[in-house]
C-alpha cells in the first residue's frame, strides 16, 4: 500500500512534474502561438488602418484635386508652373461715360475726371484724367447738362485695397469767360462686373470766413481745394472742411473683371 501509495505519490509527483514540464512546454508553445496570433492580428489591424488612412488620404487628395480642377482660388494658386505666373495680377477693364448732370444755378459746366487708385494698382491702358467740353443747358431740356464724355481704362493689381475711385471736379464758365469751381464728387468703380449707373452727389467748399467769401465774389472765384484729388480720395483730413451740396451727376460704368477668381475673389453671383 505504502509502495503503491509511494508509487502513486511518486507517479503523481512524476505526473505532476511531467504535467509541470508539459505545462511549461505547452505554455511556452501556447504563448508563442498566441503571440504570433496577436502579431498577425496587429499586422492585420495595421494593414486595415493603413488602408483606411490611405483611403482618407486618397479621398482628400481626390477632393483637393477635384477642387483644383474645378477652379483655383486663394492658396490653391498654381506656383511655378509654366502655364501661369505665380501671384498673377487681376485686371479690371472699365469703360463708360459721364452722361449728364444737374447742378443748381450753374450753366456752362465742364467736368474733369481723375482716376485714383492705391499703390499696388497700375493703369495699363487709357487716360488717367480727362477734361470734357463746356456744356450749356438747352431750351428743351432745361434742367440737365449733357456731356456724354467717355472714358476707358484698364487696371491691373495684386491687391484689392486701394480700389480705384473716380474723382470729379466741376467748373463753370461765367459771363466774363472765367472758370470757377462749382463742385467736387467721388465714387468708387463698381466691384461687380456688368453695367452700372451711379448717381454722384456733388458738393462745393464754403469759404472759411465771410470776408474771403466777399472777396471771392468780387474776384469771381469760389473757394476751392488746393489738392482735391488727394483730399477726396482719402478719408483722412477732411474734418476741417465745410461744404454745401450742389447737385447730382449721372455716370455709367461698364466693368469687366479678369483673373479675379484665381485670386480667390468671386465678385459675380454665380
Amino acid at each position, binding site marked *: 500500500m505504502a509502495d503503491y501509495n509511494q508509487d502513486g505519490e511518486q507517479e503523481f509527483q512524476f505526473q505532476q512534474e511531467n504535467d509541470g514540464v508539459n505545462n511549461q512546454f505547452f505554455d511556452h508553445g501556447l504563448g508563442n502561438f498566441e503571440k504570433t496570433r496577436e502579431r498577425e492580428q496587429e499586422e492585420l489591424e495595421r494593414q486595415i488602418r493603413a488602408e483606411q488612412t490611405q483611403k482618407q488620404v486618397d479621398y482628400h487628395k481626390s477632393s483637393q484635386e477635384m*477642387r483644383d480642377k474645378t477652379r483655383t*482660388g486663394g492658396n490653391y494658386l498654381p506656383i511655378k508652373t509654366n502655364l501661369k505666373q505665380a501671384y498673377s495680377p487681376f485686371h479690371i477693364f472699365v469703360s463708360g461715360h459721364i452722361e449728364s448732370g444737374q447742378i443748381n444755378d450753374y450753366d456752362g459746366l465742364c467736368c474733369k475726371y481723375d482716376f485714383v487708385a492705391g499703390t499696388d494698382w497700375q493703369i495699363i491702358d487709357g487716360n488717367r484724367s480727362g477734361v470734357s467740353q463746356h456744356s450749356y443747358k438747352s431750351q428743351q431740356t432745361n434742367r440737365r447738362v449733357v456731356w456724354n464724355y467717355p472714358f476707358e481704362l484698364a487696371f491691373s493689381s495684386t491687391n484689392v485695397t*486701394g480700389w480705384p475711385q473716380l474723382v470729379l471736379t466741376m467748373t463753370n464758365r461765367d459771363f466774363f469767360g472765367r472758370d470757377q469751381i462749382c463742385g467736387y464728387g467721388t465714387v468708387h468703380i463698381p466691384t461687380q462686373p456688368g453695367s452700372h449707373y451711379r448717381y454722384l*452727389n456733388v458738393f462745393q467748399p*464754403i469759404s472759411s470766413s465771410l470776408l474771403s467769401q466777399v472777396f471771392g465774389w468780387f474776384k469771381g472765384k469760389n473757394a476751392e481745394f488746393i489738392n482735391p484729388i488727394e483730399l477726396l480720395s482719402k*478719408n483722412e483730413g477732411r*474734418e476741417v*472742411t465745410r461744404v454745401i451740396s450742389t447737385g447730382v451727376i449721372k455716370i455709367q460704368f461698364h466693368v469687366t473683371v479678369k483673373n479675379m477668381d484665381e485670386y*480667390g*475673389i468671386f465678385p459675380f453671383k454665380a
Partner: protein
Amino acid sequence: MADYKPEIYFIGQIVGGSDFPTDLDGLFVEASLKYGENWKLIEKTSTIQTHTSYPDDEGFFVFAHPFDFYFICESVQGWPKLNIKVWRLDQYGKLDNIAYGIINLPNETGSFDLECPTWRPMSGWREESYNYYLGGPPKLVNSDPIVRDLNKRRFLTSMSSGSIHIHCEVLMKGYRDSFISGDQ
C-alpha cells in the same frame, strides 16, 4: 480645410444724410467700426469723420466720404458694424451730438445701398425745452446702449431723426473654400 483665413473687403462711401431736423446748420458724421475679437482690421483706422456739410434745397447733406475696410476674419461671430454718430455745427460754432445709429455691414458679396435710420435720446420737458430754446438735445454718455448692453435700451426714451445713406460693396476672398455662406 483651407490653410488660410478668409478675407473681406468693404469698399464704399458714406453718401449723405437726409430728413435731419436742421435747415441752417451743418452736419458731420463720425462712424466707427465695431467688430468681434476674431476679426482683424488691416492698415486703417477704425474711426472716420466726414466733412461738415450744409444741405441743398431738398435737405440732402452730401458727405461723399469713401472708405476701404479690409478685414481678416477667423470667426464669423462679431460681424462688423458701423456705429454712427451725427454731429451738428450750428451758426455760433457749437457742436452737438444730435443723432445715433448702428448698421450692420452686409454679409454677402455684391453692391448695396444701405440706409441707417437714426434716433436721439429724449428725456423730460426740461431738456426738451432747453433743446427748443438753446439748442442741444440730450446726449448719451457712452455708446454702450447702442452697441453692447442692449438690455439697457429699455431705460431710454428716444425721438426719431433723419437717416444716413451708405453705399457699400463687398468682396469676399476664401469664403467658398471655408464653406461660409455669402459668396455664392
